[in-house]
């Protein structure tokens, strides 16, 4: 599919709109992805943080990567150009998908669509000139892959004017949907612990209910053998998950960090202290 006419059309529309409304969205098309910088808020208010996001719409079959891309690939990176006093927070990574391409290779990333949200901290004081209109710019770099991989980049911009903070009805649903995909802290009373065995980690999740399905995504590369099947044994209160160690793991680790995705349910941040085997 050729996105170029759409890109030009949207850019023109956006530039015209920007002359008299709040937002300027520059949409860039690159091969296999359409990428835009969007904002949850329509306006800028001193001291109020903003939620911006880089929205990837991918051609069918193509994917981008999670913070830990797995066995191949590279996560997107963003370089912000912000007005003085503004600062960008960390990328809020939605829960990833497992993508296995061969016996040796499993990657972690996103198909179809992904909104990578980034909180922007606004200063308490914004001068009059800035209040008339403030430009947010980001240089986005990403790798898009199907069977082959293509490194891409785009310079994206957004213009916000001052006013009472209001949600942008056009993007609110995208942000709300992305919010639902963010991993959350484990519920109160749940506990994650890991035991280091010769070839495996045994990850024990103590929960208030039985967990019959769960997939673990390691945050650090080189700890878990990504393509190895994870075996889950449901317990009365939680589950025990066996994770094969990576060949690259030569030293003991003290903590196993990652995301536990409950299919059809939430995704939890896991930080499991690792017990070493008793010699």
């Amino acid at each position, binding site marked *: 599919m050729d996105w170029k006419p759409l890109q030009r059309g949207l850019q023109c529309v956006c530039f015209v709109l920007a002359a008299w409304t709040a937002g300027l969205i520059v949409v860039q098309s690159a091969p296999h992805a359409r990428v835009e910088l969007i904002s949850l808020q329509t306006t800028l208010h001193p001291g109020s943080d903003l939620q911006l996001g880089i929205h990837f719409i991918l051609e069918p079959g193509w994917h981008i990567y999670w913070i830990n891309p797995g*066995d*191949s*690939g*590279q996560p997107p990176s963003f370089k912000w150009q912000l007005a003085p006093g503004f600062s960008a927070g960390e990328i809020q990574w939605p829960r990833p998908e497992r993508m296995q*391409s*061969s*016996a*040796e*290779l499993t*990657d972690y990333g996103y198909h179809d669509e992904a909104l990578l949200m980034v909180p922007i901290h606004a200063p308490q004081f914004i001068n009059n000139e800035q209040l008339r209109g403030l430009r947010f710019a980001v240089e986005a770099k990403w*790798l898009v*892959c199907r*069977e*082959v*991989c*293509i*490194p891409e980049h785009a310079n994206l911009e957004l213009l916000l004017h001052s006013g009472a903070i209001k949600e942008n009805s056009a993007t609110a649903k995208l942000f709300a949907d992305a919010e639902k995909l963010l991993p959350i802290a484990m519920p109160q009373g749940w506990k994650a612990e890991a035991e280091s065995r010769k070839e495996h980690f045994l990850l024990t999740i103590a929960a208030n209910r039985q967990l019959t399905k769960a997939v673990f995504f390691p945050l650090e*590369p*080189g700890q878990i053998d990504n393509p190895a099947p994870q075996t889950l044994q449901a317990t009365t209160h939680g589950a025990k998950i066996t994770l094969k160690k990576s*060949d*690259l*793991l*030569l030293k003991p680790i003290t903590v196993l960090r990652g995301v536990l995705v409950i299919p059809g349910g939430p995704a939890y941040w896991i930080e499991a202290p690792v017990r070493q085997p008793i010699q």
Partner: protein
Amino acid sequence: MKSPRHLILLACALLALIASAFAAKVGEPAPGFTAVDSNGKQQRLSDYKGKYVVLEWHNQGCPYTKKHYASGNMQRLQKEWTAKGVVWLTVISSAPGTQGFVTPSQENDYLKTVNAVPTAVLMDPGGSLGHLYAAKTTPHMFIIDPNGTLIYNGAIDDHPTSDQSDIANSKNYVSAALQEAANGKPVTEPATRPYGCSVKYKD
């Protein structure tokens, strides 16, 4: 009595087990192999006992491989280390019809065009050598010491990007490991996460 189908499945399972048992682990004997190079010559790992051997997984169409060839970085490493007696084996595991698959003569032309100087290029379109070492990316680098022990498994350097401009600020893990080993020291970083395109296996 088991049907032939069961036996085939059993044989497959056994082969998979054998393959996993021989996976390349740092500190353990590197799996032995015989492969045909781009000049039609048989290359055996055992032929190089007593020498350091570098294995470099390669795909000339991959942006991460291109980073290190268009910049001349890989050729520089090949030149430097083969001059010091290291055996450098480039391996191509791209299956026919996938990115990076080349015929032996295409590969020899490519070597001339980019001035690459590996000791040999091993043609592995069936992927058996790739599977034996569990090669994941292009590039993915392995170093085997003169005793046949694997002493490095991982990335070429510490900047997992496809930008050539990053090379100048990168720590090259392969050079560091070869240098330390040559000085009789243990390799400080013997295992790192390889980065690049996935190896284009046939299955």
